[in-house]
Structure formats: structure tokens, C-alpha cells
């Protein structure tokens, strides 16, 4: 069950005097299993002194931890593990035990290396310094002028400038998903030239959550593209302009994650998951691919991907480039991690917390 998004402060406008209101909901992400760092709830607004006591309830989303603490806190949860998710509800009670208001604290124990993550879902974390995953010869483009669809989930972890999340190229020509914390764009390269699609803004409230992107590059005399963010169309037909034209060489096309094989050294700083490529225009299937943020197997779709890395499961010993790195589900074109030490694999406990876009 995905985590719910923290709500904002709940003091209702125009509320009558005497109404008890809870503190704003809070949340925290814990980097590894074990005891959760203790926290204390903020004070309730209680103008008439109606609060007699507090009662905390651990709502376990995933995991088997135990809650301890009293009053407004401090509280802690012990016995947690990577991938756990919890919500703690604190009821303010009157002298009769009636609930006056409820405060909420959510916890995601989301990080940490997970062995054997292939079955349970996973993502790969890139540090933005020098890490990438390459998939030489992995993209089965039918012809040099194929229409391609690239789909991926990502989550940025810093505020730095735009970076290359995923791309398909032949070493000379290609296209990529370029992302910053606040916008996404398509980026085409033709030899030494390039073209942007123009950026689409990600609302600030959604920038700390996983974002789904789907980019369609429609081949033709005047190439165009379509972009979808979280299942919604943000560009129905962008013309690349400037006489831009690729083809990407079918025999040399490769998928790359985390950095471009060409371009401007923009290494991706964040997490990526569920990367898929279709050798066709999949814009008509965006609802099924996005699936309302619910995790699913794209291979179950009527039009499954031609290339599919899901989950991204970075092999722990891929630093030297000799191991598989990331497993591909269709053609066994495993990727090779570059400058990774195996700790980049993370679980998806918080991957699909639902932003509204």
C-alpha cells in the first residue's frame, strides 16, 4: 500500500473558538532499518483546554515495528526494516475519551541496499557524480527511422541543473529525457548539433516524489515528439525545428541511464526505475502504462515493451564492468554499471506516493 502524502496544516478557516486543531502532519524518511529516530508531535491548538490525554496508534503500512512513547512524545519505532512504511496517528482525547483531533506522522524506511531485489521491486540510485548504466546494443530498433517510446520513473535528489535521465543513441544521433528538479524536456542530438523540445514544469509540491515520464519520438521528415508527465499529456506534438532530423542507427542503438553517451556531462542525481522502450508510438496506451501510479508489470500489457528494465536491480559487483549490473526482462540485454559499488540498489517503498500533477 503506498504512503499517503502528508497534508498541510489543518486549522480550518473561520473555525469557531474552542475547536481543537492538530499540528500539521509531518513525515520523515529513514535511511536504513533499525530504530527510528524519535520524534515529538507538535502542540494541538486547544483554546478552551479541552484536551485531557493523548492516544497514539501505529498504523502499519508495511513492516512489523513496534511503537513506544506517550503524550506528545517523544515516540520511536523499533524493529523496522528496509522497505517498511508506517503512519502514526495521535488522537487528542477529552475527559470522556472522545477524539477531539488527530495528528499524523508518516515514516518511510526507504533506503539501503537490498539483496535479491529482483522479485520485490527496486530502483537504482545515481549519485550525479560519475555513475551510469550502459546497455550496449540493447535497443531493438526496427529501422533507422523508427518511431520510439521511452518510459521511465525518476526522482531527483538535489536542486542542481538539468541532467540526462535516460536516452537512446548510436553514439552520434539520439534522443534523451532531460530532467531537473522542476522540469522535464526532450533532448535530441544530431552529430554536433542539438535541439530541445522546450521544458515542462513540474509543480514544486511534486518535486520530492517519483515522476513518470513518457516520451515519444515520432520519426519523419520533420520529427516531432509527444511528452506525458504522470499520465497526462503536456505536449501533443512538438516539432524539433531547425531542420532537426535523426536517424538513430538501428545497428548501433543503445540505451543509457544516468548520463548521456554524448553531450554535456550532466550525470543524473536521483533515482530511476521501470525503464522501458517500445519500437512504436505508445501514446494511445499512456493510461495503461501509467496505471494510476500502481506498480504493475508492463509485460502484461497488450503491447509489452521491446526493452524493459524493471525492476532496476544493480548487481553488487559491477564496479569492474564484468557483471550484469541491471537485468533486462525481454532480450536479456543486461546493463553494466559504471562507477557503482552495489549500494545503489534501493527498494520502492516510497516510489509511488501519489502527487497530483
Amino acid at each position, binding site marked *: 500500500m503506498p504512503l499517503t502524502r502528508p497534508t498541510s496544516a489543518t486549522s480550518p478557516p473561520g473555525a469557531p473558538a474552542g475547536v481543537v486543531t492538530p499540528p500539521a502532519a509531518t513525515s520523515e524518511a529513514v535511511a536504513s532499518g533499525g530504530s527510528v529516530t524519535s520524534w515529538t508531535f507538535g502542540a494541538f491548538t486547544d483554546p478552551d483546554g479541552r484536551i485531557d490525554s493523548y492516544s497514539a496508534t501505529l498504523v502499519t503500512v508495511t513492516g512489523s515495528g513496534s511503537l513506544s512513547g506517550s503524550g506528545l512524545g517523544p515516540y520511536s519505532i523499533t524493529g523496522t526494516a528496509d522497505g517498511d512504511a508506517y503512519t502514526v496517528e495521535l488522537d487528542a482525547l477529552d475527559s470522556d475519551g472522545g477524539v477531539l483531533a488527530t495528528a499524523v506522522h508518516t515514516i518511510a524506511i526507504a533506503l539501503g*541496499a537490498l539483496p535479491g531485489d529482483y522479485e520485490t521491486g527496486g530502483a537504482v540510485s545515481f*549519485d*550525479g*557524480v*560519475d555513475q551510469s548504466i550502459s546497455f550496449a546494443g540493447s535497443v531493438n530498433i526496427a529501422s533507422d527511422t523508427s518511431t520510439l517510446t521511452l518510459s521511465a520513473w525518476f526522482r531527483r535528489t*538535489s536542486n*542542481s*541543473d*538539468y541532467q540526462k535521465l535516460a536516452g537512446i543513441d548510436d553514439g552520434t544521433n539520439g534522443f534523451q529525457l532531460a530532467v531537473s528538479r522542476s*522540469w522535464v*524536456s526532450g533532448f535530441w542530438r544530431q552529430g554536433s548539433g*542539438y535541439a*530541445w*523540445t*522546450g*521544458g515542462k514544469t513540474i509543480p514544486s509540491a511534486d518535486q520530492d516524489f517519483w515522476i513518470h515520464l513518457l516520451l515519444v519520438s515520432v520519426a519523419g521528415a520533420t520529427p516531432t515528439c509527444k511528452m506525458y508527465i504522470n499520465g497526462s499529456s503536456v505536449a501533443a506534438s512538438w516539432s524539433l525545428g531547425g531542420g532537426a532530423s535523426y536517424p538513430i542507427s538501428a545497428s548501433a542503438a543503445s540505451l543509457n541511464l544516468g548520463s548521456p553517451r554524448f553531450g*554535456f*556531462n*550532466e*550525470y543524473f*542525481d536521483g533515482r530511476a526505475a521501470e525503464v522501458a522502450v517500445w519500437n512504436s508510438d505508445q501514446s494511445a496506451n499512456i493510461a495503461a502504462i501509467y496505471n494510476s501510479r500502481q506498480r504493475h508489470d508492463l509485460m502484461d500489457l497488450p503491447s509489452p515493451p521491446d526493452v524493459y528494465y524493471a525492476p532496476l536491480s544493480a548487481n553488487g559487483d559491477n*564496479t*569492474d*564492468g564484468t557483471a550484469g549490473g541491471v537485468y533486462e526482462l525481454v532480450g536479456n540485454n543486461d546493463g553494466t554499471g*559504471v*562507477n*557503482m*559499488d552495489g*549500494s545503489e540498489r534501493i527498494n520502492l517503498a516510497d516510489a509511488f506516493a501519489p502527487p497530483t500533477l
Partner: protein
Amino acid sequence: MKRTYCICSDLPPDSPVWAHVAQRHDTARRSLDGLQVVLKWPATSPTPDGLPADAVLYTHAEVLAVLAGPEWTPPDPELP
């Protein structure tokens, strides 16, 4: 995993430092002029012996700021 990052003069392929960092000699990221290299190792591990005298240690956030500079990243193309 938290890592310690380091920027220093490039190292020869046979430097013993490579055995203690996450990168290989042929995959490590160099500055645009090729004279400097960025290295990293687990923050819980000791600093490798044999680093050049000009080595500077950084946190992740600090090294990202350095790598965004003109010595490491070419000027932006036209932004959207």
C-alpha cells in the same frame, strides 16, 4: 551509502589508490582539461594512502557543486 569524495590530480593506472576507490582508472570522471580526477570511497572507510598532495575531500553536496563548475561541465546549451 554515504561516501567521501575527493578531487585531485589524475593518477596513473598502476596507482595503489585505485584498489580502494569505487572507480576504475578508465571509468573515473576527469575534468575537462583531463588533469584532475574525482574519486570516492565509503565514508566509513579510511582515506586511501597515496593520494596526491593536492587532494581535497568533499561531501556529496560539496562535490556536486564543484562538478557543476566550468572546469568539469561545459557551458550549457540553450536551455528550454
